[in-house]
C-alpha cells in the first residue's frame, strides 16, 4: 500500500498543471509594480505640493483606497485580481477591495447584518491580528525597556 500511495502522489504531482506558474508570477510582478508606482507618483505629487512625507503617504493611502472602492463597484477591480493575482491582493487596494466587495454583495441583507457585518469579513481579521500582533510586540518592547535591555 505504501508504494501505491507514493506512486499515486507522484502521479498527482505529474498531472497537476504547473505551466501557469510563470505567467502568474509575471502578472503579479506587473500588477503589483504598477499599483506601487501609482502610489509613488501620488506621494511625490503631494510632497511637491508641500506636504511632509508621512502626510503625503497618508493621502496616498486614502486615494488608493477610494480608487479601489470605485473600481470594485464598477466590477473592474475583480478583473484586475483575476489577472494579477497576488499583485492585486497584496497592495492596500486589495484590502479596500475586500472591504467593499462583501458589503456590496450582502447589502440586500440589510444595514446591520448585511453591510454592517459583512464589511468586516476580511477587515475584521486583518484589524484584529494587526492590532494584536503590534500590541504583543509593544508589550515585549515595554518589558525590555523596563529591564534596560532596549
Amino acid at each position, binding site marked *: 500500500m505504501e508504494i501505491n500511495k507514493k506512486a499515486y502522489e507522484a502521479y498527482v504531482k505529474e498531472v497537476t498543471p504547473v505551466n501557469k506558474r510563470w505567467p*502568474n*508570477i509575471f502578472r*503579479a*510582478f506587473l500588477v*503589483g*509594480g*504598477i*499599483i*506601487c*508606482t501609482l*502610489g*509613488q*507618483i501620488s*506621494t*511625490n505629487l503631494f510632497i511637491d505640493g508641500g506636504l511632509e512625507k508621512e502626510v503625503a*503617504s497618508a493621502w*496616498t*493611502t*486614502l486615494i488608493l*483606497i*477610494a480608487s479601489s*472602492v*470605485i473600481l*470594485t*463597484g*464598477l466590477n473592474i477591480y*475583480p478583473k484586475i485580481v483575476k489577472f494579477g*493575482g*497576488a*499583485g492585486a*491582493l*497584496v*497592495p*492596500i487596494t*486589495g*484590502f*479596500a477591495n*475586500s*472591504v*467593499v466587495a462583501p*458589503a*456590496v454583495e450582502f*447589502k440586500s441583507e440589510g444595514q446591520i447584518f448585511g*453591510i454592517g457585518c459583512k*464589511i468586516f469579513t*476580511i*477587515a475584521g481579521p*486583518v484589524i484584529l*491580528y*494587526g*492590532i494584536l*500582533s*503590534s*500590541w504583543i*510586540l*509593544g508589550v*515585549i*518592547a*515595554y518589558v525590555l*525597556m523596563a529591564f534596560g535591555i532596549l
Partner: protein
Amino acid sequence: MDYVKAFVVGGLICVVIQILMDNTKLMPGRIMVLLVVTGSILGAVGIYQPFADWAGAGATVPLLGFGNSLWKGVWKSIGEDGFLGIFKGGFTASSVGISGALIFGYLGSVIFKPRMKS
C-alpha cells in the same frame, strides 16, 4: 529612480506572495493577515522602516507597510504615554487606512449594486 524602485520592490513583494499562494492555496484573507502581522514584526525588529525609507511606495503600499505603521504607532505611543501607549498607538497609526476603507467601503455599498460574479 523613485518609480523604478517602487515598481521593482512592490512587484517583487507580490511575486513572493504569488509563489506562496500557488504552493499553499492560502486564501486572500489569510494572506492579508499574514502580511500585516509579518509587517509589524519586521517593523519591530527594525528592518522595515529603513527598507521603506529606501523603497518608498514599493514598501508602504503593500499590506506589509500597514503592519509596519501599526508597530510604528505603538512604539511612538509608548514613548508618549508609557504602558497605555501600547493600547493606543496601533489604532492611531492605522486610523486613516481603517477609517478610509470603512467609510469609502460603506459609501460604495450604498452607491453600487451587487453584480453577478464572472
